[in-house]
């Protein structure tokens, strides 16, 4: 399997993505942003479609759309009472835009399928390099902002009283999230992005009571999911995304069961 360059690239890319998603996912769960992450994945689809329409790369279009819209969504959903409605409205708008750009770009349906469901097997060395640079940027920002991000994510009341610039921290996090969504879309596709950004971290919180512990477990579970998904996709010729989704959902349900037995 590893004698094929495309499988080497796929494993390298998915390893990077699993690390990013495991780490960022812990903040997504702490900030209750699972639904927003789902919306960003749909915005990512629209961005990729726009990229194709404009003659850019899909990743370029995704980065543009997710970054701009994440800040917009974050601001619109600042009030909890209108958060879900605002996210739904923006989600609907961007799915429509995605369909429009696919239609205008005269690409066939397989492009849309690739964007929606991912095409990790088709990742080349240049795309892997691009992923590495983006991931290093995301990790560097998290490293520098770590203490602010953890305080604001796990205790927004305390962070606000402390006088932290919680609005700025929130915007920085949304941009990090937008980058992560765009990066992860390469493997699982924009439709299933939230799998890697939410499920490993959701399961991890039942096994560790520290931020670093949760990150370590979330990265581990994400790695098992993507490595297992790639292997099973290779031997069965079924979609990799299906296996990743099944493995991560399995981890989450197991975590819930274990938690229930513990209590």
């Amino acid at each position: 399997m590893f004698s094929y360059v495309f499988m080497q690239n796929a494993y390298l890319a998915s390893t990077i993505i699993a690390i990013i998603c495991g780490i960022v996912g812990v903040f997504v769960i702490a900030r209750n942003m699972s639904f927003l992450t789902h919306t960003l994945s749909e915005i990512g689809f629209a961005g990729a479609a726009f990229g194709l329409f404009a003659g850019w790369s899909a990743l370029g279009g995704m980065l543009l759309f997710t970054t701009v819209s994440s800040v917009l969504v974050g601001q619109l959903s600042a009030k909890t009472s209108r958060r879900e409605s605002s996210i739904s409205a923006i989600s609907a708008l961007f799915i429509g835009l995605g369909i429009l750009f696919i239609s205008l770009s005269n690409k066939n349906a397989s492009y849309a399928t690739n964007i929606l469901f991912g095409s990790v097997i088709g990742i080349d060395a240049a795309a892997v390099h691009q992923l590495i640079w983006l991931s290093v940027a995301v990790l560097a920002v998290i490293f520098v902002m770590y203490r602010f991000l953890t305080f604001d994510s796990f205790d927004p009341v305390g962070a606000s009283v402390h006088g932290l610039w919680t609005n700025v921290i929130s915007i920085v996090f949304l941009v990090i999230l937008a980058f992560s969504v765009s990066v992860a879309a390469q493997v699982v596709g924009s439709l299933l992005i939230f799998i890697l950004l939410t499920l490993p971290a959701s399961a991890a919180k039942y096994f560790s009571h520290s931020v670093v512990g949760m990150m370590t477990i979330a990265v581990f579970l994400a790695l098992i999911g993507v490595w297992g998904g790639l292997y099973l996709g290779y031997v069965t010729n079924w979609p990799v995304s299906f296996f990743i989704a099944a493995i991560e959902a399995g981890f989450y349900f197991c975590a819930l069961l274990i938690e229930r037995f513990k209590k």
Partner: protein
Amino acid sequence: MTEPIIALDHLTVSFPGHPVFSDLNLTVNRGDFLSILGPNGVGKTTLMRTILHQLKPTSGRVVYYPSRREVTVGYVPQFRNIDPEYPLSIRNFIELNFPGFRLPWLSRNERLTTNAIIQQTGLTQIEHRPLGEASGGEKQKAYLAQALVEKPDLLILDESTASLDPVTKTELLDLVKRLNETSGLTVLFVTHDIPMARRYSNRYLMMSKGGTESGRIQDLSDQQVWRSDHV
């Protein structure tokens, strides 16, 4: 010699069509233990939020000495929205209050400070328990420990002891009083509990619909308390 830490200067806060309090003047000195008393709805929490700069006053100002940046403020609310599945342990929750552009892991000094506060607040036995699984009293102790870990100059207890049993309430307030006496911690204690206010504080601010009164706690009469509840 008394040295002010905070002053309320002709402070007025109004919501649209609804004045909360007006023309409030008060100077709080370093080392004061000031009880803020009064029935529900007179604006005690609004006053605390204004002091914390979370609310903008309609007129007047809150002045910190020497400046807001140089005064560390700890805040312990009555209630925080902590989910029963909140994952962080009590220790990790306390350690959140070391923000800054620093390395992600704690320094030796930060760890030692956390250890000392955990010991002082009696949380040693349960420091590794998830905060979401802690009892109401344990949570309040954790909130207090988190506020104390940054060694505040001013501590605001916003009805933080209201839901606690008498033993836990006394334990917490004994600790705060000890810090008040030994390290000069200034305390703003929002409460309905007049006996506790009399026991721990040296000054009071009585808020009521009819206005505000302040003075030494030993001068607070039962008539004033009764009047504030009935105006």
